[in-house]
């Protein structure tokens, strides 16, 4: 019992640490003044302004589309890549892994600029301009390693012989993959997907250099506001995004726990 209390309070403490800045952000989205240094009363005007600001709305749309598509593609490519890498011989494996780490360990600015040079060069050959597509390709590229990095440990942990046993019992390799490997590594895939989605939302530098005219994402809009001051409109938007994710999470939870209850009753 004591142990449980200690565990809970430790977890609470860490969550407090994670959420303290978020709370501050949310509070300041209701601040009348444009400055975070000055609390001058409660207002909802930033929320109203938000929906009339087409620049912010456009970049929100770009951000979410980009995050969704890039993380799905990254999960598909990355998961299969991880399975392949897992089965590679030692030398080949370490070469591929080191290359995989490159976009993660390169400073964003280096990845961003080098991708930009390449896109501009290839683009001039095949008539492709910097735009949503190039930005998407860049996002997929920096997302894949995170998927691989979260799936690989699960593969390492998996019982090697299970897959072979399935084959011996007559399963096709596709079937065995679906029924044996995927369920085992699913938690890794999920955290990889989440990580990819989140990183894509948060990225500024790489997005900036690989985007073309008319396709700014939220980070680009926010960073470019810095000179004249990031307006609380952005805080308001972040608050809405945050609250909607949180609400959805809670809803899903309530529903699934109801389902579980039903199931348990049924089982009994």
């Amino acid at each position, binding site marked *: 019992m004591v142990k449980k209390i200690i565990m809970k309070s430790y977890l609470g403490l860490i969550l407090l640490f994670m959420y303290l800045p978020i709370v501050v952000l949310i509070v300041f989205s209701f601040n009348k003044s444009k400055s975070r240094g000055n609390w001058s009363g409660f207002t909802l005007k930033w929320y109203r302004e938000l929906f009339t600001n087409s620049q912010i709305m456009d970049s929100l749309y770009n951000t979410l589309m980009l995050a969704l598509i890039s993380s799905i593609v990254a999960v598909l490519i990355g998961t299969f890549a991880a399975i392949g890498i897992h089965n590679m011989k030692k030398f080949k494996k370490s070469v591929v892994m080191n290359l995989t780490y490159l976009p993660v360990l390169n400073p964003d600015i280096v990845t961003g600029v080098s991708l930009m040079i390449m896109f501009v060069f290839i683009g001039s050959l095949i008539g492709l301009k910097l735009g949503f597509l190039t930005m998407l390709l860049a996002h997929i590229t920096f997302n894949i390693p995170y998927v691989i990095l979260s799936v690989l440990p699960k593969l390492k942990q998996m019982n090697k012989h299970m897959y072979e046993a399935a084959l011996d019992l007559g399963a096709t390799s596709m079937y065995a993959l679906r029924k044996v490997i995927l*369920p085992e590594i699913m938690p890794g895939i999920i955290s990889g997907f989440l990580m990819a989605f989140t990183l894509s939302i948060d990225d500024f530098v790489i997005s900036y250099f690989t985007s073309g005219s008319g396709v700014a994402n939220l980070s680009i*809009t926010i960073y470019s506001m810095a000179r004249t001051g990031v307006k609380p409109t952005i805080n308001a938007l972040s608050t809405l995004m945050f609250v*909607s994710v949180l609400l959805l999470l809670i809803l899903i939870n309530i529903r699934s726990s109801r389902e579980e209850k039903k199931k348990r009753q049924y089982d009994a």
Partner: protein
Amino acid sequence: MKRFLSKLLVLAVVLSTAALAGCGTAGSTAGGSGDKVTLKVYNWGDYIGEDVIEKFEKQYNIDVVYDTFSDNEVMHTKLKSGGADYDVAIPSDYMIRRMIDEGMVKKLDFNNIPNYKYIDQKFRDLAFDPTNEYSVPYMWGTVGIIYNKTMVTDQVDSWNILWNDKYKKQVFMLDSQRDSIGITLKKLGFSLNTKKTEELEKAKQELIKQKQLGVVQSYVGDEVKDKMIMGEAAFAVVWSGDAVFMKRENPDLEYVIPKEGSNLWVDSMVVLNSTKHQKEAEQFINFMCETDIAFENADYIGYSTPHSEAKKKMSPDLLNDIAAYPTDEQTKNCEVFEDLAGSIKEYDRIWTEISAE
């Protein structure tokens, strides 16, 4: 676990479709229609009146793609790579010089920009565009000291106050090589465009001395505004446009342009060489110089306008504020930045030595 993933996907899809529905217009404008010209404008973030673009689109039947950047160098890198095909950009003085030298901007046809006549004489013939062929000024300002009257008893009229060891940890310097070294050169009585090694060396010693005196709390960027409003330090080196905002938020703050002189900066509109719509680009620039529009922009941004008629429409309070509209006497020692060209590496080495001190 599998169910969890599908839930997550649902979550993501719901969010995205919500966004999609919310910005249904986004897709349609991006598509563009037949022979309507699309003009691509590249500007600092939050640096234009809220419905100015819309007004222009209606009046001229031109679509505008409007993008923003966060600093001159980042913008330059992007444009230089050939990856971006903008028609109009609004960089700062020294960057315009560099872009002219690198052949990135076009000469303007001033027959299409009759409203240029409203631009104050003070902002013509400037060093970065001495013959007024390439650029039309958009906003301007100075660099100076903002200080908190409740924390400072001395008279503030010189850069020397930032080297006074009475004020331990009370100074915010700008985290910008060009500006911090520039004001130090001014303090020492040199030009802030100097390329002379011995003058730069003296400035370096001076900045190191300032750091050793312990007066500098930090070298900061845009966050300095909030910090001064909160009273985190007594002094900060700031841009005048921000000073107007800070003074409004915290009346204890006061802005001065030190008597040794300082930097006078100008952000100007240019047409980029890659443009296919020079005429429309010039129409846009002309539109931005219409009195009402220039006023709307300056009023929204809070920076100072070089437009003589728009200035007349400003409130008397603002016109008397030295942060917004200093007199010619107050700016007589100020200089406009020129492009440093090769010396920029010298600056960077100095800056690294200071920051590693």
